């Protein structure tokens, strides 16, 4: 129980943020308890949780997936469609969405995990791309195509709607991040969790021990995906609508960035990476439209208007000069190296 | 001065301390055999000399330190390598495999064709379709194409029929007249036939250095160090 003392204390401390009317100039545009800042903090916490769910797959089990964002998008879209197109009750929609995420993960995971290494990565990318195409195609006019659609806020619980209730959304995001943290921590310390980490190191050895890596990988995949789907529902609450941004390949890749910047394979690394990335992404956007920047010569100003440019460059610099992320990628990198060189077909030990 | 001088060589593979401070010399001319049971670090030693694994320690080739030199430059100083699994390029033809190995201005095709007439006949054949023995010949031939000062040869008779083993031994004997050889070999008959000196490894350390024939005549010592006999 003592292990949970520090994280629990942090969660409690963060829960008090909406009560603090502290001003942090430059860091945030308003005081800590203003809706704008709370919304940003909520987003940071949400993506921290999402990044950690991705790290469960990538850093702990050693599965390089380019399709994790698909489940997040499922969370956003299915919940939005259920409430807005089918006029379902909020809680029913949430349960349904989680179920869809769960079932989809089992099906897609079962298929994708038949191959490993690069092939697995490509299959997950392909499935995510399929999801993106489906969203754009706008079947039955459900997904709203390229523009997406706003969720019918009559279906949402009243305490989540409206600017005055932003602090409730903040607490939901905090709860999500805490949930992901607790689940991941519990999972990696459980006996399947140890098998996951063994699989990351040396899958052949796991087979020799008489265990089937496939089943364990699938477990990890489904768990991570369901966590992502729940994150999608939270995102829908924060955003108030669904759009195709969450289905793009760029979005999937930014998850990878988050996890690497923070450092893979550690409890805190990915979460911190997600928080920092989201923060930087938004604040750089604000910065680029501020007075200070608009008076700069256009050669400097123009690239700054695209946060992704700065983040991309920053990311390259981090990879070159701080390869540990915030934890230690050096040794994880060497291990994960083997993922990319792993053959598509796992040699069966007879 | 020894042609190859190795001092306090350490190699880590992952967490495992495979070579724990190896030191020995390879004298010029003739064959020096590197012996030991499976897994003691013989192949790793050759790979360390080639720069194919990270290593610490001192390695001198004809007096020049090469422990920090990258593989391709080591090879260009006159080191030939015949790896344990032959590592011929199966999608390339026999001829292309040889051509790839060309370094000198006058590669010694005459020598290679004389020692291995089959390679000339099968020139256009993809190397992957050759038999094990033929691949071994190609691997050795490729190392002989250039006038190397030393050849590092790793278990050339592994998996070959007795007839082919004799053939390889004959080739090694001929080769040893032309250049220095550091030979990793489990087949003691071959060692007895071609080797002048022997170095024995056990779990990452050198446990014996001495003339090969003397060692091979000492049955109890062989049994103790190599677990055979």
């Amino acid at each position, binding site marked *: 129980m003592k292990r949970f003392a520090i994280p629990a204390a942090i969660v409690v401390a963060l829960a008090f943020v909406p009560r603090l009317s502290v001003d942090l100039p430059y860091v945030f545009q308003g005081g800590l308890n203003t809706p704008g800042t709370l919304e940003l903090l909520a987003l940071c916490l949400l993506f921290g949780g999402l990044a950690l769910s991705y790290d469960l797959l990538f850093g702990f089990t050693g599965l390089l997936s380019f399709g994790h964002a698909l489940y997040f998008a499922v969370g956003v879209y299915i919940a939005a469609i259920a409430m807005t197109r089918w006029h379902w009750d909020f809680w029913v929609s949430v349960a349904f969405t989680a179920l869809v995420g769960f079932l989809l993960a089992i099906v897609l995971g079962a298929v994708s995990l038949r191959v490993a290494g690069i*092939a697995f990565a*490509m299959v997950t990318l392909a499935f995510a791309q399929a999801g993106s195409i489906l969203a754009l195609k706008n079947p039955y006019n459900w997904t709203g195509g390229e523009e997406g659609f706003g969720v019918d806020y009559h279906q949402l619980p009243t305490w989540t709607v409206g600017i005055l209730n932003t602090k409730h959304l903040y607490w939901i995001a905090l709860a999500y991040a805490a949930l992901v943290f607790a689940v991941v921590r519990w999972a990696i310390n459980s006996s399947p969790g140890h098998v996951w980490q063994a699989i990351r190191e040396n899958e052949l050895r796991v087979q020799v021990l008489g265990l089937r890596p496939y089943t364990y990988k699938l477990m990890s995949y489904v768990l991570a995906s369901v966590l992502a789907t729940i994150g999608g529902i939270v995102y829908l609450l924060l955003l108030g609508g669904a759009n195709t941004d969450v289905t793009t390949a760029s979005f999937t890749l930014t998850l990878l960035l988050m996890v690497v910047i923070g450092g893979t394979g550690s409890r805190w690394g990915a979460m911190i990476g997600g928080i920092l990335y989201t923060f930087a992404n938004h604040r750089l956007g604000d910065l680029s439209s501020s007075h200070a920047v608009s008076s700069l010569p256009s050669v400097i100003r123009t690239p700054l208007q695209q946060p992704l440019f700065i983040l991309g460059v920053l990311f390259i610099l981090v990879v070159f000069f701080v390869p540990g992320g915030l934890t230690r990628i050096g040794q994880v990198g060497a291990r994960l190296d083997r993922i990319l060189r792993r053959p*598509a077909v796992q040699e069966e030990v007879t | 001065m020894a042609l190859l001088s190795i001092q306090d060589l350490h190699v880590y593979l992952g967490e495992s301390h495979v070579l724990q401070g190896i030191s020995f010399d390879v004298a010029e001319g003739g064959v020096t055999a590197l012996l030991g049971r499976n897994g003691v670090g013989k192949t790793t030693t050759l790979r360390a000399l080639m720069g194919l694994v990270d290593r610490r320690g001192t390695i001198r080739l004809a007096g020049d330190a090469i422990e920090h030199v990258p*593989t*391709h430059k080591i090879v260009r100083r006159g080191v030939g390598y015949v790896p344990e699994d032959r590592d011929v390029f199966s999608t390339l033809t026999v001829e292309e495999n040889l051509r790839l190995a060309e370094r000198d201005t006058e590669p010694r095709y005459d020598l290679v064709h004389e020692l291995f007439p089959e390679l000339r006949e099968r020139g256009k054949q993809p190397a992957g379709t050759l038999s094990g023995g033929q691949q071994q010949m190609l691997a050795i031939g490729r190392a002989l194409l250039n006038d190397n000062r030393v050849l590092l040869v790793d278990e050339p008779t592994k998996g070959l029929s007795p007839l082919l083993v004799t053939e390889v031994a004959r080739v090694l004997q001929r080769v040893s007249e032309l250049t220095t050889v550091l030979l990793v070999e489990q087949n003691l008959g071959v060692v007895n036939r071609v080797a002048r000196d022997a170095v024995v490894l056990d779990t990452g350390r050198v446990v014996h250095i001495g003339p090969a024939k003397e060692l091979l005549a000492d049955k109890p010592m062989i049994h103790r160090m190599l677990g055979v006999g």
Partner: protein
Amino acid sequence: MSTFLLLTITGLGLGAMYFLIASGLSLIYGLMGVLNFAHGIFITVAGYTLWFVESKLGDVPVLPRFLIAALAGLVVGTVFAALTELVLIRPLYGRHIEQVLVTVGLALAVTALVTAIWGSDARVVAAPGWTGQTTTIFGAHIPNDRWIEIATAVIVLFALEAFLRRTRYGLIVRAGVENRAMVTALGIDVRKSFTLVFAIGGLAAGIAGVLYTLYSTTVDPQQGTSLVIFAFIVVVIGGLGSIRGTAWAAIIVGLVQQYANYYASSGLGDLSVVLLLGIVLIARPRGLSGSFA
């Protein structure tokens, strides 16, 4: 019948472009073990260079204007690719995951930069009139750009094969795809081949970028990335490191996409490609050519 012919030729035209992109990706991964996410950027850079140079040559007649701009696009694409390898990839030699990450970062950064400078809307490219017209064969009105795409891809295919089979660097690349360590153990510095392979990939991608401006008549910041995803699928289906496998896979993917889009329903073509990937991988994880790095 005429529709079928039109679909087939269009599918082959698309397949031609996929092949051009995928061949570079396949060689780069096969030889270097690098998943080059920045490959799409080579396409984008070539395309935008073409558009930019064209816009500066306003008064010149269309055909020479396009050709000069195309040449500029190719040069810039190739040089950019070579520089990427030298500056970003080579220093990370041996660190595969960092190499992949760096290409991801580059892809995101350059796309953002292009969007920042020229906006996210598509820009129109002026192409020689003939390419926008159609030729009628057996009743099918085939846009002429398709012929150029197919012809170019065939030429590039032969050129690549000639390079691989008849030059020393080609020999080194073929051997390196199979066993890179052994190539260094023969005294060859593979790193020069790395830069060369990146440059070839950049050139092929640049050609695809130029051809795509004929196909779509526009350039936009996202086109490189969307094309490259399909190219990745082609590479995996065809078998990493195999040029012939890539060619076959590109043809199949291009055709499947067109047929499904028409005979099933629009948008289904892209989904069928994904399905195809899934089927191939499950039935034959090593891809069509059976090779896998």
